[in-house]
C-alpha cells in the first residue's frame, strides 16, 4: 500500500539519520588527555606552547603539571611506585639511568628514526647522555652546560680585556680581581651544594670518576686529586667565599654589587641575569667557555640538560610521542628559548638570528662542542651528593684533601656494592633492555 510504504521509507530515513548521528558521536570522542610533568620555570612556561599543539592535534588535550626541582626526583620515584605516573615527563639527563633501571621509560630509537630530521641534528655529546647500552631512552629537549659568567668591567679593571683561556690565566685573573675588590668581596662564587664545579675540573683533566665498568670509586686517582686540590685552593686563597646555599639568597644582587665576579652556571641565567640585574650592570657582564688546563681551549664541561621521556606504562604512547616530537621541533625549541632562555638541543635551531647573533648564547655554542658525561648509572645522584658532602667538609677544613678523597672512595664503593652484586648475576637492566 502506498501510504504504508511511504511511512516505512520515512522510518528508514529516520533510522539512518539516527544511526549516522550515533556514528558521528562515536567518531568524535572526548579528547584524550595527556599528562605531562615539567619542572621549575620550564613547567610554568611550557603551558604557553600547548595551545599550538592542541590546534594541530584536536583530539588531544595536554595537562601540564609543574613540579619544583627540589622535589622532582622524589616525586617521580614516588609516582612510579605509587602507579601514578604521567604519560610523559621532563627528566634531567643524569636521572635517565635510574629510570632505565626501573624499566619506567620507553626506548625511542624507532620513533626517532621515523621522525623528520632524525637524530643527526642533536648535539652528539647531549644525545650520548640519553643512550644506554646503545638504546636511546629519551629525546633531548634543551641543553645545559656550565660555563663562566663574569663581570667584564671588573675583569678589565684587573687587566683582562679578554676572558682567560687557560687555568693559569684564570687563576691569575682571579687573583688580580681579588686584589682589586678587597677582603670583603671575592673573585668567584662556588656554592657548596653544587657538585658540578669540582667534577668539571676533574673531567677536564680526563679523569675517570669510577673504574672497572663503574664498579668502584676512582677518586684517589691523580687527575681527580689535582682537580680537587685546585678547587680547595680557591677557597684557601680567599678567592671564593665559604658560603652555603641558604646564605646566598640573592645571587643577582651579589653579582651586581661585585661580591663575586665569576660564576660557573648554566644557560637559564642568561635570561635571569637580564631580568634581575639592576640597570647599573646591564652590558657589564658576559659569558665565556671554560678555560682549559692546557692550551686546548675550551675546557670540557658537563653534558647536562633535560630530555623528554615517555612512561613505559602509558596508555597513550603514540600521542605522547607526538607531543614530545612537537616540543623538540626546531621552531618550538626556538619559541621555548625565547620564553625561557633554555638552549635548543637541535643544532639547526642555532642558525636562527636570535641565537646566532646573541653573544651570550654563542659562548654556549662553543662550549657545547666539548662535553663530557658523568657515569651513566642510577647511583650517580647518590654519588654526586657524597661528592658534595666531602668537598664541603674539605673546604671547611674538617678533612684534609687526602682524607676526603679516601672517604669518598670508601663511601662510593659501598654505594656501588649492589651494582657489583647485580653485575655478577647478569641482572643489570641495561643489558636486559638492549636485548628486548
Amino acid at each position, binding site marked *: 500500500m502506498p501510504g504504508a510504504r511511504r511511512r516505512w521509507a520515512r522510518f528508514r530515513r529516520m533510522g539512518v539519520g539516527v544511526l549516522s548521528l550515533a556514528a558521528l558521536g562515536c567518531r568524535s570522542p572526548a579528547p584524550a588527555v595527556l599528562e605531562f610533568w615539567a619542572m621549575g*620555570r620550564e613547567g*610554568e612556561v611550557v603551558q604557553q606552547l600547548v595551545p599550538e599543539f592542541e590546534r594541530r592535534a584536536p583530539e588531544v588535550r595536554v595537562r601540564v*603539571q*609543574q*613540579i*619544583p626541582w*627540589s*622535589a622532582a626526583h622524589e616525586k617521580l620515584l614516588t609516582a612510579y611506585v*605509587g602507579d601514578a605516573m604521567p604519560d610523559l615527563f621532563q627528566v634531567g639527563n643524569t636521572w635517565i639511568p635510574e629510570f632505565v633501571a626501573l624499566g619506567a621509560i620507553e626506548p625511542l630509537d624507532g620513533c626517532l628514526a621515523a621522525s623528520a630530521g632524525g637524530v643527526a641534528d642533536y648535539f652528539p655529546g647531549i644525545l650520548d647522555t640519553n643512550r644506554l647500552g646503545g638504546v636511546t631512552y629519551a629525546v633531548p629537549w634543551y641543553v645545559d652546560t656550565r660555563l663562566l659568567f663574569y663581570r667584564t668591567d671588573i675583569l678589565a679593571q684587573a687587566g683582562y680585556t679578554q676572558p682567560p683561556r687557560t687555568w693559569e690565566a684564570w687563576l691569575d685573573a682571579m687573583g688580580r680581581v681579588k686584589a682589586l675588590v678587597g677582603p670583603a668581596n671575592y673573585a668567584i662564587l662556588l656554592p657548596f651544594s653544587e657538585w658540578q664545579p669540582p667534577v668539571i675540573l676533574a673531567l677536564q683533566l680526563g679523569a675517570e670518576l669510577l673504574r672497572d665498568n663503574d664498579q668502584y670509586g676512582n677518586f684517589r686517582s691523580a687527575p681527580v686529586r689535582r682537580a680537587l686540590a685546585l678547587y680547595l685552593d680557591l677557597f684557601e686563597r680567599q678567592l671564593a667565599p665559604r658560603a652555603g646555599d641558604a646564605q646566598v639568597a640573592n645571587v643577582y644582587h651579589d653579582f651586581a654589587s661585585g661580591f663575586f665576579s665569576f660564576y660557573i652556571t648554566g644557560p637559564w641565567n642568561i635570561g635571569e641575569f637580564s631580568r634581575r640585574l639592576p640597570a647599573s650592570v646591564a652590558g657589564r657582564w658576559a659569558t665565556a667557555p671554560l678555560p682549559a688546563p692546557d692550551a686546548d681551549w675550551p675546557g670540557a664541561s658537563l653534558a647536562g640538560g633535560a630530555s623528554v621521556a615517555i612512561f613505559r606504562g602509558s596508555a597513550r604512547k603514540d600521542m605522547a610521542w607526538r607531543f614530545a616530537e612537537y616540543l623538540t621541533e626546531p621552531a618550538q625549541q626556538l619559541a621555548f628559548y625565547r620564553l625561557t632562555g633554555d638552549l635548543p638541543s637541535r643544532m639547526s635551531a642555532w642558525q636562527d638570528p636570535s641565537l646566532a647573533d646573541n653573544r651570550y648564547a654563542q659562548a654556549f655554542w662553543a662550549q657545547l662542542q666539548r662535553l663530557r658525561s658523568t657515569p651513566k648509572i642510577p647511583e650517580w645522584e647518590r654519588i654526586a651528593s657524597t661528592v658534595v658532602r666531602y668537598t664541603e667538609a674539605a673546604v671547611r677544613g674538617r678533612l684534609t684533601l687526602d682524607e676526603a678523597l679516601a672517604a669518598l672512595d670508601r663511601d662510593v664503593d659501598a654505594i656501588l656494592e649492589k651494582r657489583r652484586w647485580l653485575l655478577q648475576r647478569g641482572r643489570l637492566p641495561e643489558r636486559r633492555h638492549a636485548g628486548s
Partner: protein
Amino acid sequence: MKRCVQAAFIYGALGTGAAATVLPLLWMVSASLMPAGEANLLPPRFWPSTVTFAHYGVLFSRLNVGRYVFNSAMLAVAVTLISLLLNSMAGYAFAKLRFRGRDGTFRLLLGALVIPGQVGMLPLFLLLKQMGLVNTYWGVIIPGMASVFGIFLVRQYALSIPDSLLDAARVDGAGELRIYWSLALPACRPILVTLGLFTFMGTWNDFLWPLVVLTGRDLYTLPVALANLVGEHVQDTELMMAGAVLTVLPVVVVFMALQRYYIQGILSGSIKG
C-alpha cells in the same frame, strides 16, 4: 608601692613576650600587602608603603590557589567528622562499656602512642598503592580515620559520665547505639569540640603525608602547594608571604572562634590525665 612595681614588671614582661610572639605573624601579613620587592629592602620595612592585594590576585588566578584551599578544607572536614565518629565510639566503649580485654587493649593502645608516625610511613604508602589509593583524597583520609590520642581523650572525659544515667536508659529499654547517640555524645560535647578542633587543625596543617601521597597537583593541600611555591619563587618574598597568610588564616580564624572550648578541653583533659 611594691604592688605597682610588681605589676609593672609582670605586665611589661607579658607585653614584651606577646609582642615578640606576634611580630613574625604581623610582618607576614604586612609583607603580603607590600608591592613587589619591598620586603627585601634594607633597613627592613615593617609597614607597606602602599597596600596592594596584587599578590593574592596572582595566587588565585595564575597559581590556582583556590583549588588548594578547597582540597585542604575538604580533607580537614572529612577527616574531622569521620575520626570524631570512630574515636568517640571507641572512647565511650573503653570508658563505659565492659568487655573482655578492655583494659589490656587500652594499655596496649597507650603504648602505641610512643611509636613515631614516620616509622610505618613507607609500608603504608605501599599498602595504599596496592589498594589503588595513592593520589586520591582517601589516601589522606584513611590513615587519619582513627587515632589513639583521640580515643584516649574521649575515654578520659567519658569516665565522668554518671553510670546511673546510662543504666536508667537501659532499664527504659534503649539500645546501646541509641544510648551512645542520645546520651553519651551530648555529654561529651566539650571534649568533642576540642578533639574536633584539634583534628581539624592537625589535618589542615599536615605536611609530610600529603606531600608523599598526593602526587597530582590538583589534589595538593595548601601546605604542600606552599612548599612547592617556595621551591619555585624563593625570590618573590611578598608572594610567599601572601601564600603563607592564606595557609594560616582559615585555621587561625576557626581557632579564634572556638578557642574557649579548645582550651577548656585541654585544661580538663590534662588535669584528669
